[in-house]
């Protein structure tokens, strides 16, 4: 999810003179169409090399996890690699029966667990043993990892998926002669998914949380920052899921999530590379028209109430310190969105950013100091984030004070024209630098359509950046960078053992 935010930052600004021309030139190579079921395709032709990249963006992420089932969007993403009724099975009719048996035992197990203190330990142990053997029986019908194996054998590279807060993304690249294989595999994955090996994969997903959150001080701090900052909106819940939620996810949860959110009109497909529009249309029609059309799921109606007062959270860790300062900000379609991008460019633009110059270079109190304009994602009101790793021997307090000094100065002294121009130029160049990447463009075109309803926003968003003035920067800093809408998360060393015992 961080990566997405970074990519967003990069995408922002062609100067007015160049932009219109670039967009026209670019537009000639872009084809888009929508199937009758609502599934939207965007194709960028790049015939430089016989390769094609594919990117499926589903407008469903951890923000859509049902209550008590955090981690479900992520769990489904893992299941999307398990194959279909034809791929990944040795005998589907038998496997289906075995999978149903697994579910029946898990139903009983769950019912017994739900009795809480009155649960019968002997019965629980027996059911767990029964569940384990049912899982093993179902596993005998599986051709493990057949789905990704077919992709790899056909020369697929960069195969992966990411569950984000707002969206889930699936992607890989193939040699250009195997384009049809992607259409077949991707449509089958969403037409006839089989949720096999669910409970083992649930353990893997639980492991992923250990890996990304529980064993990583930055992961822990991020999780506590969001849980503290948001009182109501589901941005407060971790994408990885809470451990105990993950451990109780069930196949029917994944099936219901799939039925509600993986509908054609809620998905966008970006394709970039050496393929002709006619072929893409023909194959899209042949394979993806089979997906039944369904109503669009609702967005989240919960609105985060206005924060009235600073929030602070300390996270104990024996590792070196980190500090996060986050200010509440509006969503990505509000008019001030580009101003936040410019502010992030003023604060964090490599060695000319104010954070680097003040904290790292001059005061030497930080090893690194970075900002992100949109965190954890942009569809709903979110956070402007400043993230600092203090240098050895320096504290989070020193760094916190230094950040506020920068913010306060921006409220009273207008940013100079040279800095503003530099920020805009760098954003424009960043966009140009990614235009020759099939993977990057397939992803960006799908992202911009999914988030703004038009891939051209990739370019026209730069117009908006170009129009941001020093007055806008000052106004937005004054309005949003206030103590009362701020959340500060920081690490502290754990108490000494004797102290801990008395607590």
């Amino acid at each position: 999810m961080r990566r997405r935010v970074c990519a967003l930052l990069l995408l922002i600004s062609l100067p007015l003179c160049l932009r219109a021309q670039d967009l026209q030139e670019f537009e000639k190579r872009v084809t888009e169409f929508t199937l009758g079921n609502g599934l939207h395709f965007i194709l960028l032709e790049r015939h430089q090399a016989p390769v094609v990249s594919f990117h499926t963006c589903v407008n469903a992420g951890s923000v859509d996890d049902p209550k008590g089932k955090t981690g479900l969007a992520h769990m489904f993403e893992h299941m999307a690699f398990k194959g279909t009724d034809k791929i990944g099975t040795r005998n589907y009719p038998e496997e289906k029966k075995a999978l149903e048996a697994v579910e029946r035992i898990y139903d009983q197990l769950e019912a017994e667990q739900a009795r809480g203190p009155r649960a019968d330990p002997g019965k629980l142990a027996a059911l767990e043993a029964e569940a384990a053997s049912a899982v093993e029986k179902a596993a005998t019908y599986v051709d493990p990892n057949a789905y990704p194996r077919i992709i790899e054998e056909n020369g697929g590279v960069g195969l992966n998926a990411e569950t984000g807060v707002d969206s889930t993304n699936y992607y890989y690249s193939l040699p250009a002669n195997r384009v049809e294989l992607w259409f077949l595999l991707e449509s089958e994955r969403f037409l006839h998914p089989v949720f096999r090996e669910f409970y083992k994969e649930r353990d893997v997903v639980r492991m992923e949380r250990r890996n990304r959150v529980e064993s990583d001080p930055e992961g822990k701090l991020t999780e506590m920052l969001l849980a503290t900052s948001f009182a109501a909106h589901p941005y407060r819940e971790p994408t990885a899921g809470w451990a105990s939620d993950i451990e109780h996810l069930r196949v029917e949860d994944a099936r219901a999530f799939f039925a509600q959110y993986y509908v054609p009109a809620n998905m966008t497909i970006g394709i970039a590379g050496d393929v002709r529009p006619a072929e893409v249309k023909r194959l899209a029609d042949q394979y993806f028209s089979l997906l039944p059309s369904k109503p669009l799921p609702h967005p989240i109606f919960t609105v985060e109430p206005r924060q009235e007062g600073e929030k602070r959270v300390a996270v104990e860790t024996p590792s070196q310190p980190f500090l996060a300062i986050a200010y509440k900000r509006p969503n990505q379609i509000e008019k001030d969105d580009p101003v936040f991008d410019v502010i992030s460019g003023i604060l964090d633009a490599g060695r000319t950013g104010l954070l680097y110059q003040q904290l790292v270079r001059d005061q030497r109190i930080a090893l690194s100091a970075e900002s992100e304009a949109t965190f954890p994602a942009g569809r709903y009101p979110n956070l402007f984030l400043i993230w600092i790793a203090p240098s050895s021997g320096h504290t989070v307090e020193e760094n916190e004070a230094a950040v506020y000094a920068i913010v306060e100065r921006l409220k009273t002294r207008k940013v100079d024209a040279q800095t503003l121009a530099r920020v805009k130029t760098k954003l424009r160049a960043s966009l140009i630098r990614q235009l020759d990447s099939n993977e990057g463009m397939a992803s960006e075109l799908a992202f911009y359509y999914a988030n703004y309803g038009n891939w051209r926003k990739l370019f026209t968003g730069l117009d908006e950046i170009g129009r941001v003035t020093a007055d806008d920067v000052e106004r937005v800093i004054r309005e949003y960078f206030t103590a009362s809408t701020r959340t500060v998360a920081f690490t502290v060393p754990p108490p000494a053992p004797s102290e801990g015992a008395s607590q």
Partner: protein
Amino acid sequence: MRLRRLLLVPLAATLFAQGPAPRKAEAPSYQELKFPPLPPLKIPRIETYTMTNGMRVYLLEDHELPLVSGLALVRTGNLFDPPEKVGLAAMTGAVMRTGGTRTKTGDQLDTELDDIAASVESSIGETSGEVSFSALRENTAEVLAAFHDVLTGPEFRPEKIGLAKVQMRSEIARRNDDAEAVAEREFVDSVYGKDTPYGWQVEYATLGRISRDDLVAFYRRYFFPANILLAVYGDFSTAEMKTRLEGLFHTWTDRQPPVPPFPPVLAKPNPGVFLAEKEDINQTVFYMGHLGGLLRDHDDPALEVMADILGGGFSSRLFKRIRTSLGYAYSIGADWDAAYDHPGLFEISGSTKPGNTTDAIAAARQEVERIRTSEVTGAELETASETAVNSFVFHFDTPTKTLARLLRYEYYGYPKDFIFQFQKSLAEVTRADVLRAAQARVHPAEMTIVAVGNPREFGKPLTALGLPVHPIDLAIPPPQAAAGAGE
């Protein structure tokens, strides 16, 4: 487009149901798909020549985007660090750029380059150093001038040496915070040993001894034209770029004796289990393996296939068994990580729930044993070879990949067409070859096993593996009174 589709779908279902080609309700099976051959590979033309001062130049025109980029590849590396000043190469690489040039401070360069969205960066790694640049085409002259000045006349201003020391000290202080990084570092250092620079690391003490004079001397020894390969790529005309480079670099005539070869690897096998205790994590990270080989070894292709089948991807044995079937690990993989000029590493790495630590390591060891005792299956070999053959085109999907490869081959003395030779050998690997290579080069009894985690939660103790368990001391030697100057 939307309108047409909306109309077509209901029409197809009703009026044209008897039409000549009714839409299939089901997709075909993937085995039924037929793929046309790929067009022959397009290899970009790279102009190569040597300037009168001895610098080798590689020019690649690519007009897709209005950008110009380049790279000076320098024969140096942290393998040349003096033992009492480990960190010298890395610091030289950093301060070359940040410390500014004769005419401009580093801060002035920062502003001037950022104003035009250009970059010049420098760094020195284990076996090479590099200075790189990138800019919009319209700023070619400015970026080349800055690149030239950083490459030929860095000033190493003291305040940036001071800044680099603060940064590097902070990195030392943080080096035990990331379990994955700890496990990898301890594995690499244990396998290569402390007798050669391959197993050394930067300490407060070695950092403290480094002075500006050391940086200047290190720079002078390695940064001279005959020791550099210069590549420039992007939106320019070759003739014009030649003229520009000639104008910029013809007066740079520094000479030094040829740079000696890198020190040899002298490591002996270091078998056993090495445990670094870390209580603030909720998983165990492990690495296991031993010294590997060179890319040019005759059995390298068979070993790459072996490692691929063992732990190369979603369909590998380790992934299928330890992740998919046992649900022990999120990450698990194996690599025959051959290097160009010295023995690389054969390594298996993964992370697991603390309670499964010993079982996961035992399962991985069994898979290592299995791959050297019986032949891989025909299906496994076919998957590995299909994967390699069909993804080959991705080595050529951008012109710069071809340039980067050529540069690396020249730097390490490999034939220009090495990738094609390698690909041919890869396609010819048989099941017997894989077994023979694994038996000759994979030695389970010699494996170094490193685990980072909390042993009180390991379920079964590591001693159940039947090997001696040695503790790793992660304590960072405290800073001493620094002898060095320059801050």
